[in-house]
């Protein structure tokens, strides 16, 4: 029983990390049709920025942790918005080229991170409470799992509120639904593009800081390893669907943890799940239509 609880909570924690990456990917794809390969780099940069701030303030203090989260989100949002303005916008409506630009950016940025911070992971520490465990139904669950889950839930709530209650949210939802119509009504959708990139980048930056706590290290390859699973999550959940991304993140991560524990091949099981979903429902769990 305690093993099952531990696997479940750890799985949901990992799912929360996947969601933080996948939510941005899914929003960006839904609105703009861009598959953002540089999203992992936003995450990595957020993690390094957070770690730098935490070291300046004090790695074991709660203030350091909170400021690290803030710094990660701000850096992620800024870099993402700049990427959209400087690179993606120039290739408006040319989806393949947009993907290629983000591919180039991700290759170049990971190499640059390696040059600056070295290729090896750097082990980090956080507030002492995060490293200890809490007893939950007889299982000793590391506390950082709860923080990750709470932050991801807050991000999900925040994005939903933003989409439902604000004017930009309205434009974005309408744009996902039918972009040509929104443009025809005289609304500049391109501003919404930058906003979506910034929101996705902020979520990824937060995810970076949390992922470095979850795994216990920062490395230039932190983003790339999470990005692939985030891709799988977005396809399984249905491209462009936020709710689909949330559900698929948890399903994929829990399945991965359970399979890893009992058979040791969690990653393969996830790909198998992807294959099954594609065969049964090519548009994903909550996607509208296959593109």
């Amino acid at each position, binding site marked *: 029983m305690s093993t099952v609880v531990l696997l479940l909570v750890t799985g949901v924690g990992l799912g929360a990390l996947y969601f933080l990456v996948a939510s941005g990917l899914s929003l960006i794809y839904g609105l703009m049709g861009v598959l953002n390969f540089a999203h992992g780099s936003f995450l990595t940069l957020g993690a390094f920025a957070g770690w730098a701030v935490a070291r300046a303030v004090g790695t074991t203090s709660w203030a350091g942790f909170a400021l690290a989260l803030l710094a990660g989100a701000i850096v992620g949002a800024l870099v993402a918005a700049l990427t959209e303005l400087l690179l993606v916008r120039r290739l408006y409506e040319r989806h393949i*080229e947009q*993907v290629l630009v983000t*591919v180039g950016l991700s290759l170049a940025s990971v*190499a640059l991170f390696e040059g600056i911070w070295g290729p090896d992971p750097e082990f980090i520490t956080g507030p002492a409470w995060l490293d200890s465990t809490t007893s939950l139904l007889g299982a000793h669950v590391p506390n950082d799992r709860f923080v990750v889950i709470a932050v991801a839930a807050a991000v999900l709530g925040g994005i939903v509120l933003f989409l439902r209650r604000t004017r930009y949210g309205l434009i974005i939802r309408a744009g996902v639904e039918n972009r040509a119509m929104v443009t025809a009504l005289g609304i500049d959708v391109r501003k919404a593009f930058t906003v979506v990139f910034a929101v996705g980048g902020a979520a990824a930056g937060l995810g970076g800081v949390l992922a470095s706590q979850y795994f216990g290290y920062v490395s230039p390859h932190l983003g790339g390893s999470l990005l692939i699973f985030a891709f799988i999550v977005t396809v399984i959940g249905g491209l462009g669907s936020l709710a689909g991304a949330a559900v698929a993140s948890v399903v994929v991560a829990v399945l991965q943890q359970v399979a890893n524990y009992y058979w040791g091949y969690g990653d393969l099981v996830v790909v198998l799940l992807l*294959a099954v979903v594609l065969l049964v429902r090519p548009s994903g769990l909550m996607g509208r239509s296959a593109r």
Partner: protein
Amino acid sequence: MSRPTLTPASAVVTVVVPVVVAVVLACLPLLAIQVPGVLPGPTYTPGTLHVLALCWLVAALALSYHLLFGLAGLMSFGHALYFAAGAYGLAIVLQHTELPLLGAAAVVLVGGVVLAHVIGAISLRVTGISFAMVTLAFAQAGNVLVRRNPGGATGGEEGLALRTDHVPDALVGVLHTRNLYWLALAVLVGTYLVVLWVERSRAGHVAAATRENEVRVRVIGGRPYAVRLLVFVLAATLATVTGMAYLLLQSGAVPRASSADFTLTLLVMVVLGGVGSRWGAIVGAVVYTLLDQRLGELASSDAVAALPAVLRVPLSEPMFLLGTCFVLVVLFLPGGIAGLAQRLARRRAVGPTPERMAA
């Protein structure tokens, strides 16, 4: 692009030029040509031949990727999987069975075709960006499998060394690099011919038409799925063959050959050279491979080490320079190297006309 009948001019380009180039390249091991700064030594030395053979194999792989991306418009992020299947498959079969090289290669080839067929049939249920992600996921699964080292079969992170008991002596050792060079060149020529044949076949035309407008192909009775699957399997098979030659050349397989990054570099090569152009893919691959080899030396040179950190750090990362080049080409040079060459040739043929000068 390709025409059903050959005009005299296009016959020169598609038949004579490749033959001349292949013959010249085949003679390189017998000559002593030095290209300072590009090649490490005279062309008959094993070191240079090894670099060139690597170029030809990478070019063959890029050509097979061109078949997918340039002809059928399928952006796959999992092409490295079939390359790795060739390299690892041959290494494993040679390790555990007593089959001779050709027999082992035939077994791996059949395995590669089956693998490509199964994965292609599933991934092609979606198109466009979803297809890219799904192929990426499958390749990642392959990469994980290789790194996990199931049953000690793949050697994990260390990679797998080639067991040479059943490989002919003429293909083993530094002394025989020349033969491996010819093997690599033969793989490139063979791949080129297959790609040319596919592009000029009916299936190739349907694939190109599907790339441009799938609905229309469907309306006039074509079957986009079947044609895409055919091109996918063919490209994967070519990649498997190249992977086997790569194993012989490098006398081993490393996990990097199965990584998503490796497929991304293929994409970079094809785009650098010019999407949709056979020669573009070859030139892109050769330029990329040479740059990759040479930029590494630039990175460790004293001139770079003496620079301030702001310049030294980016310059000492070849991938950063190549990635930046790639972004610039996508932004400012659509059509890549091939497109640039075409534009220059056209400008020379037309000459500066008065209107042009005025504009």
